[in-house]
């Protein structure tokens, strides 16, 4: 399986990153790259603008954004339509473009980490983790086992609250008032749990280069019961939700992303797994044991929700496992020099960093959202207006994460 993680430029050459950190140069044969190579290379802020259906009786651009209720951040969805049916979608990410990669160059490591954490609030820990792993591999620091385990726990906590949020949004879009209220409460509980563990509701300032310091191990026992409580309550809600025909009807066969499309677009994470492909960076990490990450076949909004819901249960198991083996030593995962990556709640997060006298001299960031927006645009074609919100929410991605 080939997965394109990113394309970065150094001096005059482009380097292609795929297959979990394998680096090719652009001079390698073209068939070794994935089809979305060109678009990833260009980092185009307009997604799919060349594939718009603009001609025909009554066809017009239903512009959704940049500041409209229903679009969470500043960004534009151009839905080309003759009414109701979505013919093609192009997405304008440019409003959230902050030129992060250039701004990061020249920063010291501490400020770089701070900036990475601030790229996208709800993936703060994933960014922080991928960044620090890249720096650690670049300068050759070994991270102690406890820190590694804590990082895994924090990453899974981030996954739990993100997945809860996505399902909460789907329930809200389907006007499932009771489910929405309960999920909203669970989401808040999970944020409070983050605060209890890390001091930050969004797990910021917790991770550091070289490991996690200043952590009180006593909180771990409480953590177990807290996670148990949240996950148990979620389990009940989820089972009831699956009995609501109204809810499932809105999700079933909505915004289907075929596995072949998902692969060629470079989709990763739960979205790819909902299209029937077994892919997860966690499989490569020896710190995880007996992983059983859920996979669904249909590729629709319902499958994406199911994968996310079942991942919450899996995350609980992972957290328990890490707490139980907290004192056991583990071998660190080895990566190529300057590379750091992790499985964020929505897919693969990669940092490629070059250092020059403890300052960042070059950085390339590949986020799951960049690819997922192509997936949203692809899956919406042929759906109708009312499916739009379900499609967007089910991918669980952000403009801030994609536009950088």
């Amino acid at each position, binding site marked *: 399986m080939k997965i394109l993680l990113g394309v970065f430029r150094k001096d005059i050459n482009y380097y292609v990153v795929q297959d979990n950190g394998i680096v090719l140069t652009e001079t390698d044969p073209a068939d070794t790259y994935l089809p979305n190579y060109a678009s990833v290379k260009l980092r185009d802020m307009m997604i799919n603008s060349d594939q718009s*259906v603009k*001609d025909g*009786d*009554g066809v017009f*651009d239903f512009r959704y954004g940049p*500041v409209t209720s229903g679009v969470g951040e500043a960004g534009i969805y151009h839905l080309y339509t*003759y009414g109701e049916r979505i013919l093609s979608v192009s997405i304008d990410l440019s409003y959230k473009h902050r030129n992060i990669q250039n701004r990061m160059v020249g920063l010291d490591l501490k400020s770089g980490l701070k900036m990475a954490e601030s790229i996208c609030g709800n993936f703060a820990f994933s960014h922080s983790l991928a960044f620090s792993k890249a720096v650690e591999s670049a300068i050759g620091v070994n991270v102690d086992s406890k820190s590694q385990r804590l990082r895994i726990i924090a990453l899974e906590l981030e996954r739990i609250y993100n997945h809860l949020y996505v399902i909460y949004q789907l329930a809200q879009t389907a006007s499932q008032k009771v489910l929405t209220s309960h999920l909203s409460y669970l989401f808040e509980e999970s944020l409070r749990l983050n605060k209890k563990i890390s001091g930050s509701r969004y797990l910021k300032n917790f991770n550091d280069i070289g490991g996690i310091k200043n952590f009180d191990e006593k909180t771990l026992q409480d953590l177990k019961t807290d996670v148990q409580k949240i996950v148990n309550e979620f389990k009940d809600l989820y089972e009831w939700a699956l009995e609501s025909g109204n809810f499932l009807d809105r999700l079933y066969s909505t915004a289907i992303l075929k596995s072949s499309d998902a692969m060629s677009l470079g989709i990763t994470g739960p979205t790819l797994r909902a299209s029937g492909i077994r892919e997860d960076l966690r499989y490569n990490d020896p710190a995880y044991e007996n992983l059983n990450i859920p996979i669904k076949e249909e590729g629709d909004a319902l499958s994406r929700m199911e994968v996310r819901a079942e991942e919450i249960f899996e995350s609980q198991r992972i957290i328990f496992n890490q707490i139980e083996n907290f004192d056991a030593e583990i071998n660190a995962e080895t990566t190529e020099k300057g590379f750091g990556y992790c499985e964020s709640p929505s897919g693969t997060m990669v940092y490629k960093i070059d250092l020059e006298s403890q300052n960042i001299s070059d950085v390339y960031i590949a986020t799951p959202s960049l690819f997922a927006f192509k997936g949203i645009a692809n899956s919406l074609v042929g759906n109708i207006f009312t499916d739009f919100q379900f499609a967007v929410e089910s991918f669980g991605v952000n403009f801030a994460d994609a536009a950088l």
Partner: protein
Amino acid sequence: MCFAYTALILYFFGVVFSFKRWISYTLASIGAAFALVGGIVGTFYPFTLGNMELLPKIYMSLGVNHTSGIFMTIAAISWIAISIYSIDYGKFYSKDMGLWLNLSFLGMMIILMAGDGLTFITGWEIMTVSSYLLILKHKGAFKEAFEFLAFGELSTVSLIIAFASLFLKNGNFSFTQNSGTVIFLIMSTFAFAVKMGIFPFHTWLIGAHAKAPSNVSALLSAPLTLMGVYGIFMALSIMPNLHLYNFQWWGILAIIFGAMSAFWGALHAVATKQLKTLPAYSTIENNGMILAAIGISVMASADPNLAIMSEFALITAIMLAISHTFSKSLLFLSVGHVKEALNEDNIDDLRGAWSAVGKIPALGILISGLSFSAFPPLAGFVGEWMLLESFFQSYKFSDIITRLVATFAGIFVALAIGMAAFSMVKLAGYTALGYDHGKKAKRMPSTLMKVSELFLAILVFGFGIFATFVLRYFGYSQFTSGLFGVPSPFLMISSVPIFGVVSPMFFAIVTSVLFLFPLAFYLTKNKVRRVNSWNGGLPIEEGEYFTAQAYSSIIEIVFKKIYITKEKRSADEAHIEFVDVISVFYDALKGTILKIENVLSNTLMNGNINAYVAYIFAVLVLIFILR
């Protein structure tokens, strides 16, 4: 009496003076004014203009009675508006348009005053042929005009059969009480239903109305289909007493076809994107409602206990005919004005008529659109309220089948009324009130066009607000009353004892009083800040306007079985296709006939002299054998 004579003579002079456009149209409008007075007089004091004996017992007669007086009054108002409008509008077309316009008015006058079948047919043919020639005035409308003529002659033929049946029974053609026969009723109803554009005989109406010059569209849609309505009233009036004979089957058929028409017309009005096709489908819808109302009246008249309900349904049909005639004339005239000024056909391309063309034509579209959307207190609201009240009373029928038919028909009619509002919002919302395209309107003399639009707009308002007085004027004062502090006769009631009530006048008073407060606030406030509506934070661009197609796509997709909707899509182009199934059927029929004709002309009529000699010989042999 002299007024009707004068009107006929003026129309005749209008025909003669057709070489000078303005004289011809002015004569037509003065003639229509005389016809109006003749109609009003005839409503109260029926008169005859004399008989002309052709053969023993067979004579042609003209006269006006209560019913035809009412219809003449309604039609004459529309004629006045159309002929005044044509003084300006006729300049875009050749001189003989005045001739045919006068002639078709003359034909309709004759229909309304006909006291016998021969006169009626004469008027009918004059009207049909001159309307055909009027449609032809628009370049490239040959196919549509011919279709109009074909259906027109279909109705003439069935009228001839109907009158033949009259002659067989009575020995003459005159319309007298109890002279009707069942065959007469069936054939004449068929003829009039075709003229009204009742489903499934409505296809001629769409092409003809859409292609014809706009003053002609108004003529075809309002007074011409009104002749069909009058015909049905006339046919029923000469049938034997409805109490004694059972004509419920006629009522049931009328309700079913009426409701189907209303539904079908409204459904297709929703989907169409053509400026003049939409009002054409709306005509089908309205005539369907009128037929359904007549149907209820006939069904109720079978039961002596329901005499009041029968009368109410009958006056409902008349009120619907009034609202349709005025509103549809207004709609076609205003739409034609806008279309001519901007030279566009699609609703999408005609946005912003208010600022681009003028306030009066835009107001005309808006008011007629609101009237068809049953917006109180306009005339259309009164008519449609009465129709629904008639349907609500169908529980009074003793027969279960009748009740069921009326109930389901009521559902379809209610749906039709809702969809009519949907389509009218599209029409008025895009053309009259939509964002301006920035298109330059053609400069043209339009004062008289505006006068006639304003005249009709005031009538649409007036006949709504003063509906109770209209009812009293027509002799139905039992349906007006006073209640709940509303003084008599400002309240309309739908039955005696009271079933449902409404007072358009008081609605108008209350809303205008409520409107005074915001108006006063608006006028006293010096600084009015005008801003564009929020559109995501960016100015809206040309390609981002919500199109008329998009407005109705959801209906086309949901009802795809009825519209036979196909969503066509290629790499960078996409559109929706849908059809009127009935016209597909007629097209197939036409195709088959053409094919058969082609085969026959190639084989039998092949132009070979030997073959023709052989035919003659064969016929000779046949004659010998048969002898």
